[in-house]
């Protein structure tokens, strides 16, 4: 078992990344106590797992990267965290993230931006950027993140690690702070497919405290396959547009060639409604966020900001000063699309488009395709500040990931090459509750792909 002190030291050496929000003293103290209490028979005994700051823990505060929850101690912990602890894992602090998981670069945290582990001028992706950066820097073997539109896979791709978003309903969301309830899932980062998969297997499975968590046994880990014989892998043409970064295209083509050499049948397919996925997402997610974030009013928990004159002034000043610019913008957009007179034009349309996007996937899977392979992101990690002034440019960095959230499907990113030293991720999208097949293919791809070579 790794020594609690060694884990804390490794994490503290990386403070320049600003990836961990837990103060060093609290981290050391808690790791010592957890190590003493950990069950030696657990399958993750001694494994340090850092947890995104929007997942409730009893050991550490849960701020969601926001001023409005600064210093908030949750009186309960997430089921995923309880399961990790029961398996002997050590909760290695809370990771920095975009405020309330809204962002694609981890620049929208009230506690400062997270730095990319390989290039300090770049972003680690987001919103689970802190978790991705710590695994990418080699400080910990695995971490928890959360996904609403790609917040695990996109930073996993940027930081050169494995990131899995399970099927909607595979992992309990009890204790995950809600953002877009029809989209949110807890996801995992690992330095390898195996590390990510075994953490996912531990946190998955039924939970009486989450009615949206399906009544299923935990995910069973597949074995590493000999080959990809028998797998039919679809390449959706909409995910390889002409403007795709040439290095990303080269890396994908190399990965496809390797999968073919492993025996997979490769088939070009079409998901025709893909171009509408980002606009659909940016109606549905803000609408749900505006509703979920209505609870932060300074009354029951979290700090209050001024507004002592009147209860309404208390709400407005607490929310106005407690939320950052991106969260305020999304609450306003969400409130707008749900307001009288606009609901049909925006929200209802988006719900219908979501159905068409989900149907696209069903059509492809019904025709014998087992899995889809795509780039995870259109480009490698971008520079800090590059997209801050242009929300739509930022939103478009999730263009290949939002579809799996809209359709509720499992998907993962694995490193498939580099360009000028920056990691490139390849994405596998699977069928609902068939994570085992997706992970099997990922094992096979991981074994042969030169993940740290230039593409």
């Amino acid at each position, binding site marked *: 078992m790794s020594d609690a002190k060694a884990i804390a030291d490794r994490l503290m050496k990386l403070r320049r990344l600003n990836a961990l929000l837990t103060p060093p003293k609290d981290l050391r103290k808690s790791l010592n106590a957890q190590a003493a209490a950990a069950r030696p028979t657990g399958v993750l005994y001694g494994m340090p797992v850092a947890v995104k700051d929007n997942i409730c823990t009893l050991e550490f505060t849960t701020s969601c990267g926001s001023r409005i929850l600064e210093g*908030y101690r949750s*009186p309960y*912990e997430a089921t995923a965290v309880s399961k990790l602890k029961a398996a002997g894992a050590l909760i290695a602090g809370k990771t920095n993230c975009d405020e309330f998981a809204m962002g694609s670069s981890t620049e929208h945290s009230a506690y400062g931006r997270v730095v990319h582990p390989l290039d300090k001028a770049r972003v680690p992706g987001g919103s689970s950027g802190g978790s991705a950066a710590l695994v990418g820097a080699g400080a910990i073997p695995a971490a928890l993140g959360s996904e609403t539109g790609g917040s695990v896979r996109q930073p996993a791709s940027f930081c050169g690690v494995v990131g899995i978003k399970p099927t909607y309903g595979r992992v309990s969301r009890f204790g995950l702070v809600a953002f877009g309830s029809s989209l949110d899932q807890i996801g995992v980062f690992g330095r390898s497919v195996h590390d990510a998969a075994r953490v996912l297997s531990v946190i998955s499975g039924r939970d009486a405290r989450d009615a*949206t968590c399906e009544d299923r046994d935990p995910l069973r880990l597949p074995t590493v396959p000999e080959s990809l014989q028998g797998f039919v892998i679809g390449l959706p043409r909409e995910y390889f547009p002409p403007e795709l970064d040439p290095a990303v295209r080269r890396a994908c083509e190399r990965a496809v060639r390797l999968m073919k050499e492993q025996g997979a049948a490769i088939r070009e397919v079409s998901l025709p409604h893909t171009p*509408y996925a980002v606009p659909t997402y940016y109606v549905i997610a803000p609408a749900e966020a505006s509703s979920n974030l209505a609870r932060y*009013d*300074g009354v029951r928990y979290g700090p209050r900001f001024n507004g002592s004159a009147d209860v309404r002034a208390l709400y407005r000043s607490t*929310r106005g000063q407690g939320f950052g610019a991106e969260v305020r913008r999304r609450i306003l957009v969400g409130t707008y699309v749900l307001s009288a007179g606009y609901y049909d034009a925006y929200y209802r349309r988006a719900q219908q488009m979501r159905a068409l996007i989900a149907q696209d996937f069903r059509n492809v899977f019904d025709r014998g395709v087992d899995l889809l392979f795509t780039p995870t992101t259109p480009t490698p990690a971008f520079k800090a500040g590059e997209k801050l002034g242009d929300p739509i440019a930022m939103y478009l960095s999730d263009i290949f990931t939002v579809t799996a959230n809209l359709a509720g499907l499992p998907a993962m990113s694995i490193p498939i090459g580099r360009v000028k030293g920056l990691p490139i991720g390849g994405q596998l999208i699977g069928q609902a509750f068939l994570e085992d097949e997706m992970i099997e293919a990922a094992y096979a791809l991981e074994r042969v792909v030169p993940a740290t070579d230039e593409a």
Partner: protein
Amino acid sequence: MSVTRDEVLRIARLAELDVEEETLPELAEQMSRILDYVAQLSAVPANGTVKAFVPGPDAIRFRVDEVSPAPLAFGPDEFAPVFKEGFFVVPRLDQFE
């Protein structure tokens, strides 16, 4: 521009959110761009034949109707900003809107 300054103020009131006067022009501009961008959804056939899709189980499972203790490690007196005699304390409402 599809969203005016006054509309931002109206929406902010609905959202119980203070917005600073000097940020209004930028907010109106950004909201307009976002809403113009998502307006491409009007490509959906508007005949209403497409049913909305929500992932997850088709029906909510009922659980046994039993009272069980809330799994709280500590009470609201430790996490509420102001808590007194079993109540969350707030300033009084001056007037109804």
